[in-house]
């Protein structure tokens, strides 16, 4: 076949040289950033799940402390309270706990007292709320008051509020760390773009003088660094997924720990990483290249 018809050899070469010695270092740094970002994302998902589980558990239950009055025995008051609560809308089940449970709860504070049964220990009623339409503390209190019972309702709202606040904080913290990593990656790409433009000033000048627009040249650098960052993102994401999978396997049925219940589905958080890395790099490279190219003219 004559030279002129050799199709493979006529494929236009890229305007910028393909293999740069600097690419390896850039890929490593961006891959590390992506690895950390993926771990952060998975950590936030797991922490969010733990907070959701704890909140769900607490919102489905309430505890009622019943104090006997008017000569009524503690057990009789607890039984009457359980009966009144069981008939309240939004309550799935109300059960008076055995006295031993109440003794177990106060024993750590009083020590091993032999005549604990002689003390006027309040009885507890465990209330399981209807999941769909749970009764609130006010409704439960009204039901008890209707039966002239001296009781206190604890719907765990204080704990729920704290857990929700902690969950929100973890989410914001995760988002902050994620943004910080993205900004650091963008700064590294901007630095690499600056170095790339300095190293390829000859190419930029030739392209300019051949009639290339600033945007055309900037897009060459944008495409190059988006490609490099996309590859780095893939490497970082895979590494994070492998580590997370290993931790999930080592952690057993509850995920990593009960406080950080990593699920297999959390590994999906790494999927957008290469694309996000490429987008961040593309934006950083485009912005930096445009500024520098304008200054070159």
């Amino acid at each position: 076949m004559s030279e002129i018809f050799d199709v493979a050899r006529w494929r236009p070469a890229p305007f910028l040289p393909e293999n740069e010695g600097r690419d390896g270092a850039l890929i490593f740094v961006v891959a590390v950033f992506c690895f950390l970002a993926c771990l952060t994302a998975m950590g936030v998902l797991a922490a969010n799940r733990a907070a959701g589980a704890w909140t769900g558990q607490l919102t489905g239950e309430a505890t009622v402390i019943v104090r006997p009055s008017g000569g009524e025995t503690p057990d009789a008051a607890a039984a009457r309270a359980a009966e009144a609560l069981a008939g309240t809308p939004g309550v799935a089940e109300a059960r008076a706990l055995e006295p031993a449970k109440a003794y177990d709860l106060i024993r750590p504070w009083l020590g091993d007292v032999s005549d604990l049964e002689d003390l006027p220990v309040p009885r507890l009623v465990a209330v399981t709320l209807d999941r769909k339409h749970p009764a609130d503390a006010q409704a439960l209190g009204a039901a008890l008051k209707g039966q002239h019972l001296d009781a206190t309702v604890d719907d765990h709202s204080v704990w729920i509020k704290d857990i929700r606040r902690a969950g929100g904080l973890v989410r914001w913290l995760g988002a902050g760390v994620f943004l910080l990593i993205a900004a650091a990656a963008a700064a590294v790409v901007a630095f690499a773009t600056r170095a790339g433009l300095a190293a390829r000033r000859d190419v930029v000048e030739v392209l300019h003088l051949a009639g290339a627009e600033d945007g055309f040249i900037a897009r060459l650098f944008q495409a190059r660094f988006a490609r490099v960052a996309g590859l780095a993102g893939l490497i970082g994401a895979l590494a994070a997924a492998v580590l997370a999978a290993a931790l999930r396997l080592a952690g057993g049925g509850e995920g990593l720990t009960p406080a950080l219940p990593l699920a297999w589905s959390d590994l999906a958080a790494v999927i957008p990483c290469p694309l996000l890395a490429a987008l961040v790099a593309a934006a950083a490279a485009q912005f930096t290249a445009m500024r520098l190219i304008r200054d070159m003219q």
Partner: protein
Amino acid sequence: MSRNPIAATAPRAGEDVVRFDDVSMRYGRGPDVLRDLNFSLPSGSFHFVTGPSGAGKSSLLKLIYLAARPSKGLIHLFGQDVARAAPSARPHLRRRIGVVFQDLVLLEHLSAFDNTALPLRIAGRRPADYRTDVAELLTWVGLGGRMHAMPPTLAGGERQRLAIARAVVNRPEILLADEPTGNVDHEMAVRIFRLFVELNRLGTTVLIATHDQDLIARSGRPVLYLEDGHIARRPAPGKLDL
């Protein structure tokens, strides 16, 4: 593809494609390297610009191919005041100018074919559209058998002709050449000059900066003589049988 903002300003034959009115130029805060230049290049003309080293020949070409800005005066290209042209118009103006640089500035990572096709790719043409044209042009400049060679493997004369091919591939209205025969032997210099003459016959306005007084004398073309940054004299055309 972006709109060409100067498409409607193409000069007719005989009209000035380049006009300098009291143009001066300096680098940074240094002294003027060009002073009060007044000249014009009609469409289809062929001029030399010469003078001692440091006279400002390359700076003059830089002003025309928009790689530098004047510190004073007006430059008109294709009838358009360059200073008033929008930044977006400058790439389109450059596409109408072919330049053979003194140091050639070939892209070492591109083959002879890709170096030549560079202006066409930048202008948005597809490989299928320019493949034959580029191959023919390279054959015309004597590089038909070296199309896939990389610039570092080319001899001096071949590199020179490659730079010329790249400069003329998109049929520019002006061809500027800075010492195009500086690094080649006499025989190659004559071949290159014939190439320029042929392009000029096809309608391209040619301006060559050179030290080669023998070539100038034999060519019989008009000369802009630069000395100490200004046009000192315009020798009468001689006669050369090329």
